[in-house]
């Protein structure tokens, strides 16, 4: 592009909204949040700068246990989503064509055109003690009393996987679609079995899609609030829940900000490690979504 021939004015006019957005809505707020997280409350309207709020986190097993639990549940839901979604994506991208393909792909998207709240609400109706599954089990005689399937980790997992599926399937279908069929055929032609082709050709090719799907799903799970709270009930403990309660029921912004920062650190760290392990770059994988 002959930048030199273009007006500098246009450049600055285009740059301005970007900077305005990033600086006032992303960068400064995070700086501000960090500053607030360093305020230790020492009395009525009296604050001092310290790491006391972070100390609270590290001194209270509850908080870092929740932190760890949130992380591994999120990782588990990411892996599960990948395992369930990959065969589906492969089916759509490689084993169907034309109208069937479009239809199946659309069917994958439809649930996600409605809000997460509605989707979770649906699961609540299905899983609750007076809900559909319990009723069906009793009806067919597999249970003689109502069965409670809500309010446990499995329910949370179902909800998380369900809610994240789109964000896995879309990038996977996109990358698998871009895999030239003749590569797969060439693999067969050269004597490979289906499994060898999956391992040596399909998965390496789909790696950017896998990584981008995993990052997004992981972030969505980690940052989720509704699903754990509505499906997990009294065991819903989720780190975002702690942050919300600091802000919304404890009006303790200082501790809440510290928690927020810790969550941000954790998510960035895990994403960073994931990118390094898979040798992908953020810019490249995110263009997949």
């Amino acid at each position, binding site marked *: 592009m002959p930048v030199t021939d273009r007006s500098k004015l246009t450049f600055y006019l285009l740059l301005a909204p970007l900077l305005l957005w990033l600086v006032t809505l992303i960068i400064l707020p995070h700086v501000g949040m960090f500053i607030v997280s360093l305020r230790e409350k020492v009395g009525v309207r009296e604050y001092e700068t310290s790491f006391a709020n972070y100390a609270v986190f590290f001194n209270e097993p509850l908080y870092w246990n929740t932190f760890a639990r949130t992380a591994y549940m999120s990782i588990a839901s990411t892996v599960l989503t990948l395992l369930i979604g990959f065969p589906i994506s492969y089916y759509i991208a490689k084993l169907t064509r034309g109208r069937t393909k479009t239809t199946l792909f659309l069917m994958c998207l439809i649930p996600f055109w409605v809000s997460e709240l509605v989707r979770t609400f649906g699961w609540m109706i299905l899983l609750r003690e007076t809900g559909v599954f319990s009723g069906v089990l009793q009806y067919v005689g597999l249970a003689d009393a109502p069965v409670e399937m809500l309010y446990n980790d499995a329910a949370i997992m179902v909800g998380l996987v369900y809610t994240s599926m789109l964000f896995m399937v879309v990038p996977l279908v996109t990358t698998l679609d871009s895999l*030239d069929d*003749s*590569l797969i*055929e*060439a*693999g*067969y*032609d*050269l*004597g*490979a*079995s289906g499994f*060898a082709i999956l391992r*040596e*050709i399909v998965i*390496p*090719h789909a790696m950017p899609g896998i990584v981008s799907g995993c990052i997004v799903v992981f972030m969505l799970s980690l940052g989720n609030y509704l699903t754990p709270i509505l499906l997990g009930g009294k065991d819903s403990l989720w780190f975002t829940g702690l942050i919300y309660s600091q802000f919304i029921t404890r009006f303790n912004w200082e501790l809440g900000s510290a928690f927020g920062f810790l969550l941000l650190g954790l998510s960035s760290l895990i994403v960073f490690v994931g990118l390094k392990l898979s040798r992908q770059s953020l810019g490249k994988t995110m263009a997949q979504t």
Partner: protein
Amino acid sequence: MTSTPDLEAREISKSFDDFKAVKDISFTVPQGTFFSILGPSGCGKTTLLRMIAGFQKPTSGDLLIKGRSVLDVPPNKRQVSMVFQHLALFPMMNIGANVGFSLRQRGVNKSDIKQQVEHVLERVGLGGVADRSVSSLSGGQKQRVAIARCMVLEPDVLLLDEPLGALDLKLREHMKIELKQLQAEFNTTFVYITHDQSEALVMSDQIAVMNHGVFEQVGTPKELYYAPQTAFVAGFVGEANKFVATVESIAGNAVTLRTQGGRSLQGVAAGAGLAKGTKAHVFVRPEAVRLSRSAPQSAGNGGEGIVQNVLFNGANSQVMLLDQLSGAEINVALPQTGEYRDLVKGGAVHFWWETEQTRVYARD
């Protein structure tokens, strides 16, 4: 030696829904032959090749490799390899891993693989590149790696689906010669698909000209060029002037015709179905037409033309003449000797060609 052919097709057909892409084709390819299938886009070449490779099941007919039917053999077990149009080199592997892929699938041990890969790469003139990435190669080198990848298994038959289609003009010219040399060196049977007649002519031992799912003619390049058996082959292979004319009389092979513009032509009957009073297609190659400054006293066809256009192109220059009598346009190859280099637009010149060079086909 009349040993069993490497490849034999018996009345093989393929239908998609109610569209018949390949219609009852039979042919045999003897060991070591460079066999080309030449035809326009959509005529069914790829479909035929994919049936041989095992990627598509024939609707009817049988396929034999080394005399044994392979209809029930899956593609990963067939002794045929395929070079894909866009080569289908695995971008996620380096060159060595690409070439060694099939050996790994067979569980050959690592050091043997390494050795065999190096050996076959050397044979295609690419020794020592095993550790480089596919993308670091030029188009022609990629081509050779794709062939090496197939040859490492020593297949009975190598299938190639327009492998030069994606290359640029100069490289394509070069690779034509190289491919033929590689084939001769490996002495493997090649089945080569193309829609470019010059590729087929230059490389092949045998060419099958395909159209609408059938083979119109199978023969050597020279047979196809000098003795095309159908109007389609005459028009598709090589350049030709084409006239429509009405048959006035037939005597044995000799046909007399009259074009719409009123010119009388003498030709040889080159296909069945010609009858007095019917319309016929007449083909004459541009290089068969001779020029002369004065009216020639020959027994063939000819007349006087006005130069419409001189298409100077070095050794391949042509003139376009307007036949004064019939108003037909005639392309004439200018002699390489440079004789008629002075012709200019608007000038008049005599032209003529021999009866034997005038091939007449019934209009279907």
